[in-house]
């Protein structure tokens, strides 16, 4: 059964179509990786999945609630079942790591402070930061900040966990640790995981299914093996890391030819 359904999603910025009628079903309990290059529309899709933007048309249904048309109260209720770890970690700098994790528990539950303290410790221990709760985000390394943001995302035991570029800006070892953490979180907390990334290694390690995004459309949605076996030229280019031929493109070539033959260059 789908926990997230994206139907005919269209997003435009200033008349430019960024997402072009996307359709996607994400099953409960699976790890879906939204893979694509820069400018493919991954972040826009993510923002629409989280209800941070309203699309021009189409719908995003999460747990049977269309978040593009629901009331603010319903949207809040849906959001409580989603944990998000942003690309920049987005920890609140004025709060300690513990306070960051405790924030949602304090505000959205009526748990006793001692229970919240215990829960926070457990979440921090799960991401390997049990001894760092008293530190402020600026005192942590990039990888630790990401892990702290995962702990915060896990705070309310969400049904859906969303990661925006989890390995961006991290060295390969820390990125691999974070992949392990995503796999571990999914196994332990039994949740649906949605990951937006352009990192191939990470995507193929953690995904159950991959949705390949290109210029606002899905080129393919399938298992890792299906994506690996795809013969779509854009998917092959992405997987085989073939650069675009911008420098030899006709427009660029003709521009340089025109420039070189101009009187300024050849008097």
């Amino acid at each position, binding site marked *: 059964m789908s926990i997230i359904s994206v139907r005919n999603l269209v997003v435009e910025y200033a008349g430019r179509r960024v997402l072009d009628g996307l359709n996607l079903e994400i099953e409960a309990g699976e790890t879906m990786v939204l893979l694509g290059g820069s400018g493919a529309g991954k972040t826009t899709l993510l923002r629409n999945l*989280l209800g*941070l933007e309203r699309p021009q048309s189409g719908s995003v249904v999460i747990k049977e609630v269309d978040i593009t048309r629901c009331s603010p109260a319903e949207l809040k209720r849906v*959001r409580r079942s989603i944990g998000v770890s*942003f690309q920049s970690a*987005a920890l609140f*700098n004025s709060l300690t790591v513990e306070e960051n994790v405790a924030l949602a528990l*304090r505000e959205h539950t009526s748990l006793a402070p001692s229970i919240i303290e215990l829960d926070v410790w457990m979440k921090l221990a799960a991401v390997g930061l049990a001894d760092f709760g008293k530190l402020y985000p600026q005192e942590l390394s990039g990888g630790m900040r990401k892990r702290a943001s995962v702990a915060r995302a896990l705070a309310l035991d969400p049904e859906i966990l969303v990661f925006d570029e989890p390995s961006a800006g991290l060295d390969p070892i820390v990125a691999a640790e974070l992949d392990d953490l995503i796999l571990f979180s999914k196994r332990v907390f039994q949740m649906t995981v949605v990951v937006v990334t352009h990192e191939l290694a990470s995507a193929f390690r953690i995904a159950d299914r991959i949705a390949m995004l290109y210029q606002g459309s899905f080129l393919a949605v399938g298992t890792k093996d299906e994506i690996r076996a795809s013969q779509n030229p854009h998917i092959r280019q992405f997987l085989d890391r073939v650069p675009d031929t911008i420098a030899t493109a006709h427009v660029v070539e003709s521009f340089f030819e025109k420039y070189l033959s101009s009187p300024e260059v050849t008097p």
Partner: protein
Amino acid sequence: MAKFIESVGRDTLKRLEYVGGLSIGLWAAVRALRTALPVTGNRYRWKASIVQMLQIGVEATPMVGLMALCCGFILAMQGGSELRRYGALSLVIDLVAIGFTREIGPLLTAIAVSGRSGSAISAEIGTMVVTEEIDTLKVMAFEPVEFVMAPKLLGALIAVPCLTVVCNVCGIFAGWIYMFFSTHLGLKLYLREVLDSLVLRDVVSGLIKSIAFAAIIVLVGCLEGFRVRGGPEAVGRSTTAAVVKSTFLVIVADMFFTAIFYFTGKH
């Protein structure tokens, strides 16, 4: 000519849009204000409001006090030099007392708070936008207006009138320093003269103005912060805009309030 009219129209629409944004912000903040109140509201918001009171009010007290002393002394000297010629030096007391409570106190405080706290509010929220902290608040099912704006507004609504009272006291005290060196007037007698020259309406009108100024400064600061798009340079621009716009709007609002009190008062 057509282009000129077009640009005037476009600019007018832009200004109206800004004022509309401020009105919507005011409405949202007033609705969210109850969450920051003690007892009935959320205790974490109330704590945040106290922090804001300290930052906006207590920390600005030395600066505002010193500015008021200087302005009080300047006003007394300028007034004294003219009034002495007509043998009406005693009117300096009225000039300083009424001038400060009705006008200079609230305005001077507002300008100081605008430069100090308006810019800080805008920079803080702008940075939160850039670092995705505002988005994080939304996906954590918090209302950014409630979480960020309400404590600042409540803090300012309490701190700025208090700061205005401090400003008035310091300004009036500076008037006594002038009178003491000019006529050896004792403090007790000076204060009696001050109380005779003031009516409750003077003090209340000044405090009403200071409440309105506090709301303007916080609203403009928050609106500029929330409107930040792009990187750190956008935060810098929003900070400058917050100070310039809030100072301008404070002076415009001051004119309207003065006109209202002028036409509704006895002459």
